[in-house]
């Protein structure tokens, strides 16, 4: 049967995806609008210290690098996490289009959010093959904008809306469409694996061995890619593949159907590829600086009670109960995959497995579960009108929580950080440093974490940036402070600079250090100054 593209519906979904992508970056548009005169907005739409790392990796890609290098220390260029390398690729793509690093980052957030939204609808189409377009549209809206239950309380001065939830619970729009490109990439890849698995299961009885091999290899490589930066997503999918292919294989064996052979081959190729890589990655993470992150995260486990869990997942979960019977009445491959994924996701979340694996259990809460809840909820209604009415009511209910979620992001001090806006003069100074041909590292004060920003504008390592990326952070913090406070002797200061190949000393107007001590160091020569920054070069003799 020839497939006919319904362009009208295609445009509807396209428009919704564009709007969703636009909403996902709305907070930085508002941030940009707030830019005070004489300042530059750094578009920190995510936790600012992580964000600067990602943007700096984009910069490295634009500068032609293929392997990530830690610019936030002078003595540990290899300190890294595996998933950062893909930002180099994003940087290379940005360079092709002559974009600057920050524009590259946000256009990619927009693009990946757009793709994610489109894929969500594709999945809904497969989950609801017999439903009208309007039903699919309703499920689409619910999966995009689902929000938790909330309470409205009055404190001493004003009414406040407090949503139920816990850290990293994914229960509002901005936690599902995050401003982090590789998080969205992980959701996109997860959906692609699900589509591949569903298609393979449906066609298993007529696939050739070559086709199974190709599908297994494709799935395996996608999962290996996922393991590098989102091992929790990869693990959820691997376990889902195992469970689903096991059940289907047993069922087809009982039915004396040959397709179980293809299923076992498909799953076997994936496991043979992925499991050794997974073990290697786990060992690698345990042997690097990521171990500290693992130790920290493994102690951070959320254990919400049953009531809080229901309230956190929100009305869409309650609504989904009413559609379960219709959902189960026609069990397709993709429906079974989603049920398995959900079971495994919440099974791991409520178990101690995450702690053993060295991560927080919240990483196993997948935003994809809302696709399932929304689908089930809409399947309750045969009539389009009922589906539209209930969806509209639910969306209205979700609206206050989503608005409150947006306000929280705008007021989040991790996002609207102390250095989200920098005086223009500081950026001009950083750019000046990039024009100097002489190689050498730059010293910044530990105050305000400007060491995390400088390497975005100049190809130089800094002495101290942030805890995660600068080894011996506290010690370096104190040593840098002592240098700027002028408490080192001339000999100590020179040795400090020389040992760390620090050729440039930078001080800005926002860091709270006096510049006078720097002028007392005879070996420092002022090479650039404006009202917001002064830069010294360490004299050669």
């Amino acid at each position, binding site marked *: *049967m020839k497939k006919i593209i319904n362009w009208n519906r295609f445009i509807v979904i396209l428009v919704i995806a564009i709007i969703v992508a636009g909403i996902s970056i709305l907070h930085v*548009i508002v941030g940009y609008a707030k830019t005070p005169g004489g300042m530059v907005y750094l578009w920190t739409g995510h936790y600012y*210290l992580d964000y600067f790392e990602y943007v700096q990796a984009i910069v490295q890609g634009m500068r032609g690098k293929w392997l990530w290098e830690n610019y936030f220390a002078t003595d540990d260029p290899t300190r890294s996490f595996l998933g950062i390398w893909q930002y180099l690729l994003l940087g290379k793509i940005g360079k092709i289009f002559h974009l600057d690093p920050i524009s590259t980052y946000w256009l990619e957030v927009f693009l990946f959010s757009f793709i994610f939204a489109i894929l969500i609808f594709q999945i809904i189409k497969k989950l609801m093959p017999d439903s*009208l377009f309007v039903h699919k549209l309703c499920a689409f809206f619910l999966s995009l904008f689902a929000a938790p239950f909330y309470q409205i309380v009055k404190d001493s001065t004003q009414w406040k809306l407090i949503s139920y939830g816990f850290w990293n619970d994914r229960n509002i729009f901005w936690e599902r469409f995050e401003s982090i490109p590789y998080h969205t990439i992980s959701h996109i890849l997860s959906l692609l694996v699900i589509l591949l698995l569903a298609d393979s299961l449906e066609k298993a009885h007529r696939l050739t061995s070559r086709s199974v091999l190709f599908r297994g290899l494709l799935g395996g490589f996608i999962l290996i890619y996922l393991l590098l930066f989102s091992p929790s997503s990869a693990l959820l999918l691997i376990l889902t593949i195992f469970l689903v292919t096991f059940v289907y294989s047993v069922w087809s064996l009982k039915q004396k159907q040959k397709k179980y052979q293809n299923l076992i081959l498909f799953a076997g190729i994936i496991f043979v590829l992925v499991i050794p890589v997974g073990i290697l990655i786990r060992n690698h993470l345990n042997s690097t600086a990521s171990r500290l992150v693992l130790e920290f995260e493994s102690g951070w486990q959320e254990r919400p009670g049953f009531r809080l869990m229901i309230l956190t997942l929100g009305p869409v979960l309650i609504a989904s109960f009413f559609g379960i019977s219709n959902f189960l009445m026609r069990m397709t491959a993709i429906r079974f995959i989603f049920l398995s994924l959900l079971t495994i996701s919440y099974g791991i979340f409520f178990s101690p497995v995450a702690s053993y694996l060295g991560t927080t259990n919240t990483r196993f809460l997948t935003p994809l579960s809302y696709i399932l809840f929304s689908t089930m909820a809409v399947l309750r209604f045969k009539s389009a009108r009922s589906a539209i009415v209930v969806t509209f009511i639910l969306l209205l209910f979700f609206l206050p929580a989503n608005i409150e979620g947006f306000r929280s992001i705008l007021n989040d001090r991790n996002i609207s950080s102390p250095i989200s806006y920098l005086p223009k003069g500081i950026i001009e100074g950083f750019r000046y440093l990039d024009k100097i041909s002489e190689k050498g590292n730059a010293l910044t004060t530990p105050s305000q974490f400007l060491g995390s920003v400088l390497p975005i504008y100049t190809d130089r390592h800094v002495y101290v940036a942030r805890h995660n990326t600068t080894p011996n952070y506290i010690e370096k913090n104190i040593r840098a402070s002592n240098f700027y406070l002028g408490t080192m002797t001339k000999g100590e200061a020179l040795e400090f600079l020389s040992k760390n190949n620090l050729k440039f000393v930078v001080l800005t107007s926002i860091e709270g250090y006096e510049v006078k001590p720097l002028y007392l160091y005879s070996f420092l020569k002022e090479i650039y100054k404006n009202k917001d920054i002064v830069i010294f070069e360490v004299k050669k003799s």
Partner: protein
Amino acid sequence: MEKKAEDAQASQQDDLGLGKNTLAILSVGILVVFLLIVAGIYFWVSKKSKGEVVFPAGVNYTGQETQNPTQSPQRPQYDYAALAATTDSIPFTSPKGQYTFAYPPGMIPLIFPGDPNDSVTFDVSDVPAQFNLMVLVESISNYDPKLRGRQEQFVRNYWQFFPGLKGVNTIETSENEKGLTGWKVSYITKGDTVTSVNYFFTIPGDSDKILHVNNIFPSEGEGVFAKILGSLEYKK
């Protein structure tokens, strides 16, 4: 068979009761409206924010450009008397949600994202804020694992972990208005001066963590500190 599929698709096109291209036109119209709304938000916010200049750590600057780049950025100037007198307050919850307190409107709490001690402070002295923390959650075992569960001994020995201190000056038990119990202590520095008052509150059910509160305020801010201390609670 292909015609049947076409008919089926054609009939399904009308399940929203709309004409052939109405859906597409409506969608594009909605997109245009969305873009206009975003543009409107942008212009409204930029107009509303005009004239505000915010420097790091929340210091509000009046807009005068500094002529001398060697000047330090302005610290917030608090009217402590007014702040102590006001009955209004703003609730604060620590970044990791471990404790809460209330502070007077107009003050700007400073937090340190990623800080394992979940600390907070205010910029109220000459000492840079990151070295002058007001509240932090300390792990006793980080200092000496043998002192875990022996909070009072930890408090008495706290000076030993800092080379600038040489002993305890005064120590007495303390309880705040929210029922936190612990000790109020000051230490002697190697220069024979006395530190500001430190409060250490035990955390029910946790033998390793201790809530450490440091009076960072100048003498004229004592009233404000007392209000903050009195409202401090540990969140379960």
